[in-house]
């Protein structure tokens, strides 16, 4: 340990002591000499240990034990599941794994370690960063792992592709967006449940109509009726969480997306996208069926919404099944799922945190093996049965025997098969994160710009026009960086 000198050491005698202190001064000199001797002895000890250590290094290296580092985030339960998965890996392959657990600020830590060339071998990486890092050469190609036969075939919609066409990340879980609803409330209001089959999905207008029937104010009136008090709404029809994925889903549903067809331009300010944003904002300001940003209902968890009947439906991601299952047990709420309403075609965006192999790895083949393990659906079954993840291999969606392995009573609601499994299989469109590295910057521009649209102080067209130059700049900078 590198300590700074203790105060004691500062008791050195100064040259101008008055004569009366000579005796003290010489005593001090003795003490100082003693300390110097001790220091020298300490230094010799350290040198000796250092020499021994250096000599033993070759021996250590010759032991040929490979240790990989694996990093992830997550809570304690997830940590445990991963630890047991890693232990099983070590058992079966003899390769040791050091688990680097980073509960918070994962990207900051990874970036810092990258600067010091200390990146782990394998690990998670947040979706917005993956393609960015890959384009800078920070991630290695996973294709050999996928072809090796150690991993079940992965769906193409869950592969992260860098500018060279390499597969640099594969989602450990598939996640899609759908409508979660409170069946008890629908029963109370006498309204049929949201459709669970994509063929039966509501059009946007049908969706708005149902929302109006679901929304009631404190006097029991619906939007559009006389005396409806929009400032005192008791139950809203719908709210949207995780806006980036929800917006994307509806953009795909309207035949557009963040980017133009050729992938070289921004589509966010074009008419189809503007139409989507305006429609969503109208839910708040025109139809009064969705809470605005400041409404209490908007800031509640899904389970709190159903518990207090503040919202009949919540549009959010599949991962909510885990916490809803816990809430069902703790608070007795019920929940089920249906497919999203559509503009032109029923669509959802899909996403999923990937596992990647980092640039600094010194054992590429072994790292690929570890990545395969983590990608293996059997291996992470606990996450899937708890409702947090969905599998990433097609056969787990189509093969009956396999489906029954991961469908869990009490977690996956009655309409899960149609509204999630079939939905994810047939109606999904990969999120832009899988192929573009500039999505985060675009979101940091357009989502705040939509704040005013949702408040009703701007139209979607105005908001998007106001940031059009910025969006274009991000795109052109990004394209330039790909050269």
């Amino acid at each position, binding site marked *: 340990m590198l300590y*700074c000198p203790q105060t004691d050491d500062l008791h050195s005698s100064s040259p101008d002591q008055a004569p009366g202190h000579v005796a003290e001064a010489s005593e001090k000199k003795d003490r100082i000499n003693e300390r110097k001797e001790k220091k020298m002895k300490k230094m010799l000890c350290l040198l000796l240990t250092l020499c021994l250590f250096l000599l033993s290094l070759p021996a250590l290296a010759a032991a040929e034990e490979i240790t990989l580092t694996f990093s992830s985030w997550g809570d304690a339960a997830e940590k445990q599941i991963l630890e047991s998965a890693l232990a099983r890996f070590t058992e079966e392959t003899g390769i040791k794994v050091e688990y680097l657990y980073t509960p918070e600020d994962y990207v900051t830590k990874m970036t810092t370690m990258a*600067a010091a060339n200390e990146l782990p071998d394998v690990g998670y990486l947040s979706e917005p960063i993956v393609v960015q890092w890959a384009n800078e050469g920070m991630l290695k190609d996973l294709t050999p792992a996928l072809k090796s036969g150690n991993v079940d075939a992965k769906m193409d919609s869950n592969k992260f592709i860098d500018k060279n066409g390499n597969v640099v990340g594969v989602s450990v879980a598939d996640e899609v967006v759908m409508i979660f609803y409170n069946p008890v409330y629908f029963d109370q209001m006498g309204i049929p449940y949201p459709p669970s089959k994509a063929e039966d999905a509501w059009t946007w207008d049908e969706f708005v109509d149902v929302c109006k029937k679901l929304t009631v104010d404190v006097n029991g009136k619906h939007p559009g009726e006389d005396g409806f008090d929009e400032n005192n709404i008791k139950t809203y029809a719908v709210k949207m969480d995780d806006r980036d994925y929800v917006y994307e889903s509806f953009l795909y549903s309207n035949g557009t997306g963040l980017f133009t067809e050729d992938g070289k331009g921004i589509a966010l300010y074009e008419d189809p996208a503007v139409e989507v944003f305006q429609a969503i904002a109208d839910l708040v300001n025109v139809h009064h069926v969705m809470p605005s940003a400041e409404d209490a209902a908007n800031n509640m968890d899904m389970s709190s919404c159903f518990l207090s009947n503040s919202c009949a439906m919540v549009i959010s991601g599949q991962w909510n099944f885990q916490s809803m299952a816990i809430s069902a047990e703790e608070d007795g709420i019920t929940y089920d799922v249906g497919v999203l309403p559509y503009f032109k075609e029923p669509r959802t965006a899909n996403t999923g945190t990937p596992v990647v192999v980092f640039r600094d790895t010194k054992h590429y083949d072994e790292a690929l093996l570890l990545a395969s393990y983590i990608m293996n659906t059997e291996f992470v079954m606990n996450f899937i049965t708890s409702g947090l993840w969905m599998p990433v291999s097609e056969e787990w969606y189509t093969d009956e025997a396999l489906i029954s392995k991961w469908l869990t009573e009490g977690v996956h609601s009655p309409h899960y098969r149609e509204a999630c499994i079939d939905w994810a299989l047939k109606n999904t469109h990969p999120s832009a994160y899988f192929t573009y590295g500039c999505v985060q910057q675009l979101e940091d521009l357009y989502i705040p710009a939509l704040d005013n649209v949702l408040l009703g102080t701007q139209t979607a067209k105005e908001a998007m026009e106001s*940031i059009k130059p910025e969006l274009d700049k991000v795109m052109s900078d990004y394209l330039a960086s790909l050269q």
Partner: protein
Amino acid sequence: MSNEIANGVAAVRKRRHFSAMRRNEAVAGYLLMLPLLLGIVFLTYGQFVYSLIISFTDQSVFGAANFVGFQNYKKLLTEDFFFWKSIKATMLYAFGSVITTQLAALAVALLLNNRHLRGKTFFRTIFYIPSIVPAVASCLLWMWMFNPDFGLFNAMLKTLGLPTSKWIYAESSAVPSLVLMSAWACGAPMVIYLSGLANVPPSLLEAVDIDGGGAWTKFIHITIPMISPVLFYNTLMGVIAGFMTFTNSYVMTEGGPNNATLFVNYLIYRDAFQYNEFGYASALAWIVFLVLAVLTLIIFRFFGKKVYYGDKD
């Protein structure tokens, strides 16, 4: 003749003694400063210089660093979409929070310094608690209190018949809301004021009593000058802390609504770690450094001269 020589020798001896004393003082000074010096050189300014150099490149943490001169600075000042809004928001927050927090801290400290007050220990602990509650918990709590529908604040305003606010959910009221939140955690500066107030000699206060002066005279002519060192410290630290604010906007508002609370520190973090534009972020940090350096100089020039220390300097 011998007298002159004796005087001369005495004078030389005195001079030697004084210069020896001065040398003594300098040696002692540097020895005592040694830990701080080592820290400043190896753990602070070495890294500062590194980041200053990086600010003139287009480094992206793991890419090569190409020298780009003042391009980053120019881009920030002329082209960056967020920069000016961010600086304005940060300044608004910093000055707002210094004023409210220091006033609150001083007021509470003065109240708690009352001779006749019982239960000082209890009250002091109570008022300090908000500043040690973990940020996660206090941010959640304040989001609840700020809720326009059911939150505590609007409930109170409604009962008093006053107009309600949208607090952190509207662009215009977002920063003032965060300023209010910072004033609530005035426990730390309050403690420092209490330490300073404890050093005000009671004899001086009694002298005012005897001369027939009231509480206000005591406050202006005795208390304020006597605590001016800590007043100075707290004000400067308050300004710096206000500029460096990060957690509140990161956790509570994510820079919104519509970037109203996108403070510079959050912008730096985002540019450095989410966009991987490290050179650009460093340039932004150094602009903040310059702004703060100017502010600090101003505070030292105007405020610093008026501070009364006990020593004759």
